[in-house]
C-alpha cells in the first residue's frame, strides 16, 4: 500500500503542511465512513438516526474533494494522457508542460473567482464584478447570510458568526457559509500549488503535472520488487 513517495517536503513548514493535508484527508474519509455506518446501526439497532448524518457526510465528501485537489497537484496524482508528451524531449517537452501549467492556472483562477462570488453572499460579503476576471467589488450584492443548512445543528463555538454576519440574529441551524467556505479555500490553495508547480517546471524540478494511471505508485513498487528478484 505505502508506495514510494514521490513528494518530499523541502522545509519544516512544508513538512508540517504535508502531514496536515495527509491527516486531514484520512480523517475526513474516516469520519464519512463512521457516520454513515453509525446511522445504519442506529436505524436497525435502536430505531433512530442522526438526522443530520447524511447532510454532514455529503458536506464532508465535498470538502474532501475540494480540499484534496491542490494536494493531488502537489504530489502529481492527477490523471492525464502522456502518450504525446512522452514523445517529446528537452526544450519542447518543457514548453508543452509550461503550456499545460498555464491552462491549469487559468482554470484555477477562474474557479477561484467563481468560488468567491458564490460564497461571498452567504458570508454577508460582496461579490466581484466582471464576467471573466474580477474587475471591482459589487456593493449591491444581495446578502444571503441568513441561509441555513437543512438539518445540521448549530455548534456553540460558531455562535460568533451571528454577530459577525447575521446582525446578531440567532442561527437555529448551521449557516451555509460554513460548508461553502471550502470552495474559496480549496481553489486558493489550488492557485498557490499551481504557482509552485510552474516554478518547479521552470527550474526543472519536475517534468509534468500528470500521471497516466491511478496505480502508478503501486506498479513502481512491484517493478522494484521484480528488479530485486
Amino acid at each position: 500500500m505505502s508506495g514510494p513517495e514521490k513528494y518530499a517536503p523541502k522545509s519544516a513548514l512544508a513538512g508540517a503542511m504535508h502531514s496536515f493535508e495527509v491527516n486531514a484527508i484520512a480523517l475526513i474519509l474516516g469520519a464519512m465512513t463512521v457516520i454513515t455506518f453509525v446511522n445504519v446501526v442506529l436505524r436497525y439497532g435502536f430505531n433512530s438516526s442522526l438526522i443530520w448524518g447524511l447532510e454532514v457526510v455529503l458536506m464532508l465528501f465535498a470538502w474532501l474533494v475540494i480540499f484534496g485537489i491542490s494536494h493531488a497537484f502537489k504530489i502529481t496524482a492527477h490523471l492525464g494522457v502522456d502518450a504525446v508528451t512522452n514523445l517529446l524531449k528537452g526544450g519542447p517537452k518543457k514548453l508543452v508542460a509550461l503550456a499545460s501549467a498555464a491552462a491549469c492556472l487559468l482554470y484555477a483562477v477562474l474557479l477561484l473567482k467563481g468560488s468567491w462570488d458564490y460564497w461571498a453572499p452567504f458570508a454577508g460579503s460582496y461579490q466581484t464584478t466582471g464576467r471573466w476576471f474580477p474587475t471591482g467589488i459589487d456593493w449591491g450584492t444581495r446578502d444571503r447570510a441568513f441561509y441555513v443548512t437543512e438539518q445540521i445543528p448549530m455548534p456553540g463555538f460558531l455562535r460568533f458568526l451571528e454577530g459577525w454576519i447575521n446582525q446578531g440574529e440567532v442561527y437555529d441551524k448551521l449557516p451555509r457559509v460554513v460548508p461553502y467556505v471550502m470552495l474559496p479555500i480549496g481553489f486558493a490553495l489550488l492557485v498557490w500549488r499551481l504557482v509552485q508547480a510552474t516554478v518547479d517546471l521552470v527550474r526543472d524540478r519536475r517534468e509534468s503535472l500528470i500521471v497516466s494511471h491511478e496505480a502508478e505508485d503501486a506498479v513502481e513498487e512491484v517493478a522494484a520488487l521484480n528488479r530485486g528478484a
Partner: protein
Amino acid sequence: MEVFLLFLVIIGLLLIGVPIAVALGLSSILFLLAYSDASLASVAQTFYQAMEGHYTLLAIPFFILASSFMSTGGVAQRIIRFAIACVGHLPGGLAIAGVLACMMFAALSGSSPATVVAIGSIVIAAMRQMGYSKDFAAGIICNAGTLGILIPPSIVMVVYASATDVSVGRMFLAGVIPGLLAGTMLMLTIYVIAKVRNLPRGEWLGWGEIWASFADAAWGLLLIVIIMVGIYGIPGLTGAIFTPTEAAAVASIYAFFIAIFVYRDMGPLAGKNGGRRISLLQNPKALITGFFHADTRRTLYDAGKLTITLMFIIANALILKQVLTEQQIPQAIAEAMLSVGFGKIMFLIVVNVILLIGGQFMEPSGLIVIVAPIVFPIALALGVDPIHLGIIMVVNMEIGMITPPVGLNLFVTSGVAGMSVMRVFRAALPFLGVLFAFLIMVTYIPILSTWLPTQVMGPEIIIK
C-alpha cells in the same frame, strides 16, 4: 459548430498533458462564459453540487476504501491459493486459476488496475516458475483484470447509474451473468490452448486443500456477501437492508476489522518484518490503537487520494454535461440519428465505436459521465433497455483498457510484468479477440444483462 470546437479544445488540452479534469472543466468554462449567460459563481455551485447533490456517487469513496483495506497482499494471496486449489489441476491450471482469482478479486474491488496489480504481481511470477512464457501470463492477467469493472461492485457502474438515474442495485445484478460469462470464456480459451500446446498442469491437492484455502479466504470473500445481501436482502426473507451507498460504508468498516484484527496483515497486530502476527489477547489496546495506527491512516489516505482524483474528473465532467444539456446536444444528435434512419443495431454499433475510441483517451468514469447523457435519450427512443446499455458501455470500457495507445491495463500490466506496452498488447491480442466476441454477444443478446435484475427486482419501470 461551437460544440465541435469545444471537443477540439478538450482533445488539444489533453494531448499537451493537461490533467483530464482540467481539460474538461476549462474548456467547458470558456464555452459557458463565451456563449451563454452562466456565471462563474454558477460553475462553482455545479462543482460543489457534484459531491453534495449526488448521493449515489457517495458510494465511490466507500467502495474504494473497502477495496483498499482488502488490497493488501495477504488477501490476494489467500484468494489465489483458493483458486489454485479449485482449478490448478486442469491443463493450464495456473493460468485458469489466475482468471478465477481475478474474478474473485474483482468482486472485492471496483477497479481494474487494482485487480491487475494485486493478482498480477503474484500470479505472473508464479506462472513463470511453472514454465509458462511471460507473454502468456501477462496477456491473461491483462485481460482478466478488466473484469474488475464488470463484476459488481463496480465504480464505473455507480457512475453510470448516477448519470442516468437507473438503480445501482440493478446495474450490479446485471453485471453478474456477463461477468461470469466473460470469465468462463477466457478460462475455456486457456483450456483449449493448454490442451493443444500441452501446457503444465498442477497437482490435485484434494478436497481438504479446497476447504482449508476456502476457510482462509472466506473472511475476505464474505465482503461480497455483505454487499449483495445488504443491497438485495435475503431472497424470500427480507427486502433490501441497505442502500448501495450504505452497503459500501458497512463493507469498509467490515474490511477494516478483517484487515486489522483477523488477517492482521497490517495495523498494530501485524508481525514486524515477517515476524509472527500478534494475537489480540497479547495486545488488547490494539482495539483502540487500530483506529489510529499508521497503516489505517495510510489506507484511508490512499483511498482518499484516489477518491479526490476520480471525483475531480467527475465533477468537471458534470460541468461539461451542463454545457451539453444547455446546448441541447443530445436532442440534436438523437434527431440527426433518427432522421438518417438509424435502427437499434446501427445505434449500438455507433455507441461501440464512440466508446472504443473515447476509451483510448479518457478515464472510464469521466467518459461515462460525458457519453451516457448523450446516448441515453437516443437509446430510450430506440427502445434499448437502459440497464442493457449500461452493460454495453462497461464492456466497451473494458476493451478500451487493453487497446493501445492509451489502454490503462496495458500500462499497469507492462509495469507489473516488466515488459514493453507493445509486447503486452501482442500478448493480450488472442484473449482480446475473446473479449471482442463477448462484446458482440452482450450487445446483441440483451437478455444476458436484463434477466437477473428482472428476476430479483421485478420488471423495470422506464420513465421517459
